[in-house]
């Protein structure tokens, strides 16, 4: 889902940075200093998840853990994504510093949306219900991210829409895996350490 340097137009870059700066400022304001360690840990897990490859047939993909980050951190997921993507750009050259705004917006928005929509549902007492909701949130986060990447590409040039469609379809298997992993993770955290989700 990382958009590379040089792909986006000036309008898309400015739009990405405007959204990211606004949401990160809100996120930082809402992040209590006592929660900054947890934010950093989830940011690190988002960074590391992209280094773990999972085989799907002849190809392989990597997880993003967008939904767990969003469900646990809420608004703080924006600064967490910004920091993780910044480190990925400078250490592994994934994405880039100029497209960092757009990439953060693409990853941060799904995390925030799943927090707003599913945040209360996954904390429900009914384990099966919360497991299903965690699965939906995990899969939905990936698909929203792919849609946003397509929108940014479309803003840059309308002819990118065909490539964006391929990007969207390519993310469907990843969305299913992400949903399964999110569901298991949330169930485990609810059982072992419910206060981590509080």
């Amino acid at each position: 889902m990382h958009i590379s340097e040089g792909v986006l137009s000036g309008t898309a870059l400015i739009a990405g940075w405007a959204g990211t700066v606004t949401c990160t400022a809100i996120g930082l304001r809402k992040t209590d200093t006592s929660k900054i360690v947890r934010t950093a840990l989830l940011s690190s897990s988002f960074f590391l998840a992209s280094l773990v490859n999972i085989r799907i047939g002849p190809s392989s993909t990597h997880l993003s853990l967008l939904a767990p980050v969003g469900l646990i951190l809420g608004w703080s997921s924006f600064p967490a994504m910004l920091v993780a993507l910044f480190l990925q750009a400078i250490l592994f050259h994934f994405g880039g510093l100029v497209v960092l705004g757009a990439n953060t917006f693409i990853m941060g928005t799904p995390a925030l949306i799943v927090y707003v929509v599913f945040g209360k549902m996954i904390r429900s007492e009914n384990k099966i219900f919360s497991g299903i909701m965690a699965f939906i949130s995990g899969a939905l986060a990936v698909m929203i991210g792919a849609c946003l990447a397509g929108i940014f590409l479309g803003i840059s040039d309308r002819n990118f829409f065909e490539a964006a469609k391929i990007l969207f379809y390519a993310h469907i298997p990843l969305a299913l895996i992400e949903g399964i992993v999110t569901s298991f993770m949330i169930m485990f955290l609810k059982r072992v350490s419910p206060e981590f989700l509080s």
Partner: protein
Amino acid sequence: MKIESITESQSHSDISPEALLLCSIVYAFTVSMSDSFYALSFSSVMPLLLILRFRFILSSLVKLNAFNLVMIITLAVTWPSLAEGIMKGLTIAFKVNMIYIFFGTLIYPMGYAKIFSAMNGLKVPEKLRVLLLLTLRGIFILHNRFSSALISLRLRAPNLHGMMKFRAFAYITASVLLQSSERSESMMYAIKSRGGFSGFIQSEQKKFRVQEVIACLCFMFYASAIIILNYA
């Protein structure tokens, strides 16, 4: 690249990290926004000079262009016209190369410590810088614990498939997060007992030297020339 090797600084520049970071970001924005042939040709002058000075970048450019080739083929297939798709792909590949040479020679070899110091100089909010440092620390901790957990999983169950594999991965991630969270919470208490975040990041606020101001001004003229050529 291995996680352990990311801390080393291999910077060869005498100019301050703040000035380099600022100039590189301005350059990357300028190139990203340019589409005209003359503007892009002129923008390649400085990266070509940088290649002559820092030849180590050439090997990583090969890898980068292997990825670019896939991107050009994708655009050629999906664009309304084949020729236009290839042209668009080549333009993007050119921009990616120019930006990568700039960042790859001037910014990435600095190492994280100098980049953090540059961020301090560029007045990035303290909370974000603390988060950046704690995230980097978290990466090392989680990476170590995660690697050990994966090794033990492979020893106990070498042929995990399907749902079991995803469940094992999810449980490992969640348990590593919980373990590290406990340790990090105690570190947080230690920071608080020492007086909070004040002085957590010790970095000197430096002023730009005369030669750095001149270098930045020259660079701004260069970037302005690219913009003018793009709209001329």
